[in-house]
């Protein structure tokens, strides 16, 4: 009965989540590499269309497409894929690699909370997490807010006993500030990785408008920011995503706030806070 109960409690999942197709959800493609020539063509086209200045960032990060309509909405963000040699890192990721190998040997795949090819470690400080990864060019937000969670996740593909390909390391921070939920990801993809690099995106049900802007940090770094809002039940969800790549690291910032819309002044204040918070966030990165 317990088994059925747990599955039954998911019965009320919203209709639109049940009918969204994978093609609507996914903007990731297997090959994300953009040859220089193709990128130059895209830059010219984007410039000719008078779109935002991402194209002018040479091969920086840019929104390659977006669409909005009743059948679904979404956008794709692309950048010049960079993959780092795992040997460039001088932290302690090898210990996680060994953990993955051991997990793979001993795992009961049917009933376990552990995942093959995956290991996560929590940290109580930024410095410890960054030192653990050991990539000199990795930068995190240096600001006064304390994250509720800091974790390093290592993804690897394992074949046989010890044949391991390191795919990706991700440093994640979570915050809740003024009723706004924030997630911060710094991702490094390794050479030979089986995972996608060079592209990400969003796809949603319904007609969601995306506004893209540039946001220049105090240090002069330009982030691509994408704003959107959507409704679930009685709440509106206001989302902001910011993206930047630098020295082989992909930086993704995500914030979401919900509001019932019953007080216009409160909603306006919340949205203003999101704006100022995003500026604080990008300003906190010093490359």
């Amino acid at each position, binding site marked *: 009965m317990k088994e059925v109960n747990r599955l039954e409690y998911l019965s009320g*999942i919203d209709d639109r989540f049940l009918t969204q197709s994978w093609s609507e959800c*996914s903007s990731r493609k297997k090959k994300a590499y953009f040859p220089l020539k193709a990128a130059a063509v895209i830059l010219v086209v984007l410039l000719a269309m008078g779109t935002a200045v991402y194209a002018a960032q040479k091969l920086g990060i840019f929104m390659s497409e977006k669409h909005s309509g009743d059948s679904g909405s979404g956008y794709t963000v692309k950048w010049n894929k960079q993959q780092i040699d795992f040997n460039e890192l001088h932290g302690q990721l090898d210990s996680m690699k060994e953990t993955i190998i051991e997990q793979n040997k001993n795992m009961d795949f049917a009933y376990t909370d552990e995942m093959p090819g995956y290991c996560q470690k929590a940290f109580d400080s930024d410095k410890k997490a960054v030192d653990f990864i050991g990539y000199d060019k990795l930068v995190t937000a240096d600001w006064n807010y304390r994250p509720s969670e800091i974790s390093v996740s290592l993804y690897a593909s394992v074949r046989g006993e010890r044949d391991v390909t390191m795919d990706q390391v991700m440093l994640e921070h979570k915050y809740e500030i003024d009723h706004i939920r924030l997630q911060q990801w710094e991702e490094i993809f390794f050479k030979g990785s089986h995972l996608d690099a060079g592209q990400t995106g969003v796809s949603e049900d319904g007609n969601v408008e995306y506004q893209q802007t540039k946001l220049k940090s105090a240090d002069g770094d330009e982030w691509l920011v994408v704003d959107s809002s959507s409704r679930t039940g009685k709440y509106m969800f206001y*989302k902001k995503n910011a993206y930047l790549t630098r020295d082989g690291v992909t930086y993704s910032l995500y914030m979401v706030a919900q509001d019932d819309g019953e007080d216009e002044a409160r909603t306006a204040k919340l949205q203003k806070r999101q704006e100022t918070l995003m500026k604080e966030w990008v300003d906190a990165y010093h490359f």
Partner: protein
Amino acid sequence: MDEKQIIAMLWNREEDGVKALQDQYAAKLKMLAAHFVSAQDAEECMNDVLLAVWDSIPPNRPDNLFAYSARICRNKALNKIRSMERQKRKAEVVELSKELQNIIPDKVEQESLLTELINEFLEQERAQDRYLFVHRYWFGESIEELCGQTGYGASRIKSSLFRMRKRLKNYLEGRYRI
């Protein structure tokens, strides 16, 4: 035939509406049920769904006929599991439930609140992760089926689901007090 036309036929009590529903969705509904019960029971569930839809439209007039039918189908399949002896339940159902252990409680006082929170959580998640979660735990699809649909490897899907379960757990602990 699009859904609106089928709903209109059912609303007007035209029996061709049931035939149209069957032509359009029988295979998908049967596959959904078959994730939870045997093939024979899945066939029975699917037939029950056609009857239930015919009996309930009107007065109901769903916005999304597939979601409406699928929900009835899933509930019927889960009810069938309840009536089975434990050892006759599909191993896949037990596995699904185990994955949700410590995240969704066995017994819930405020079911509507839990549903609201789960939908809020899903709204905030990335669409790809949300798809994997819904198709794994609502539709009961196997990892292999999800690999076929998404083009992702099994390892990647499992790790996405693992992370999402953790995030859901944190979200519910903060608001629902499991």
